[in-house]
């Protein structure tokens, strides 16, 4: 009716997940999150991921602000932000983002400002890609919920 074919959506979702795993964007921790979702917490994964996005964007803004500052020298502070970013990325299974944080941290420990700037660019890029893919995934899942509703409509009093 509305192009909401549950079977096709199921395939789409799994294809997207398989791609993200294959690309190393996500790792098994993401699957672990899915296992924690149940009837009493049906939106657990999207809730955690949305918190992760909110926190990540704060961290990215802080990192950029630090590096854009001409008199920047507080590599220690940058390290703290990076540790937080690494930790939360690892907790949601955002493998590639986490790996870029590791490289970023290494540059930071060497007080290598140019290296840090390059790492930040890469980090922003990886984060953007992840966010877009996650939104795609959640969209498919929302469609699946709708499709289930369409399939088994509640009887109207017409």
């Amino acid at each position, binding site marked *: 009716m509305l192009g909401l074919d549950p079977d096709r959506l199921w395939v789409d979702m799994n294809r997207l997940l398989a791609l993200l795993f294959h690309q190393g964007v996500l790792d098994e921790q993401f699957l672990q999150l899915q296992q924690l979702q149940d009837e009493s917490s049906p939106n657990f994964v999207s809730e955690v991921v949305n918190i992760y996005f909110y926190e990540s964007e704060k961290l990215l803004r802080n990192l950029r602000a630090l590096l854009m500052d001409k008199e920047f020298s507080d590599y220690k502070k940058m390290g703290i932000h990076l540790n937080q970013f690494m930790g*939360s990325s690892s907790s949601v299974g955002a493998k590639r983002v986490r790996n870029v944080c590791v490289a970023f941290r290494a540059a930071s420990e060497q007080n290598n400002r140019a290296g840090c700037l390059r790492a930040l660019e890469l980090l922003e890029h990886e984060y953007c890609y992840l966010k877009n893919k996650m939104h795609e995934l959640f969209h498919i899942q929302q469609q699946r919920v709708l499709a289930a509703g369409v399939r088994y409509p509640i009887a109207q009093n017409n």
Partner: protein
Amino acid sequence: MARNGVASKLWRPETIDGLNLSPSGDHDEVHVLAVDDSLVDRKVIEQLLKISSCKVTTVDSGIRALQFLGLDEEKGSSVDGLDSLKVDLVITDYCMPGMTGYELLKKIKESSTLREIPVVIMSSENIMARIARCLEEGAEEFLVKPVKLSDVKRIREYMATREVGARKHEKGNSFNKRKLCDSCESCDLPLSSPSTSSSPTPSASSSPLCPSSPSPTLSMLSSSVPCSTSSLDSPTRRLKMSNSE
């Protein structure tokens, strides 16, 4: 987002000032206090514990954890009426601003009222020296993040065997240490006498350890001496036990 709609005997608001309180009127369920400065990690550990049938309270710092445990330095020791908030396990992140997980561990183990509460440390860094230090200070276990369901299940099983031990002892049954040890073969954690309530009398119950071959001398020791885990356990044994996983 409390999973169970259990009303507690004492009314407690859902959140106070950065604390997330879950009602914990049910004393049979394990009540875990989770400490982590990361909101993402708090959310994940909370769900891991809830899925594993634990009551969970999450706080974002060591200081808040101590306040919740009733160790507010201004007020002194155990606060009255906190019986329904009895904590059976503390699980804490290592790296936190202000008070680290290690410092929190020390404070808990130094407290006469709280030292029997098992403490688990979580860390994203797999540093041997850090792990050893935590275990030496009395941590039950050291988990490398990201924490998985299998980690929490293992801890849950350990807590279950502790409860069984405590109930048996309270009923005054003949306490078969060997049997208890056999039942926790799968876990590498030593058992300690649980005394998480705010009772003033030091627990004179035995501290059955969980070695692979319980010896008679060990059971003699534990029945006569009210001991904390650190006096009988060798830190290196704990380290070896943890590493054997």
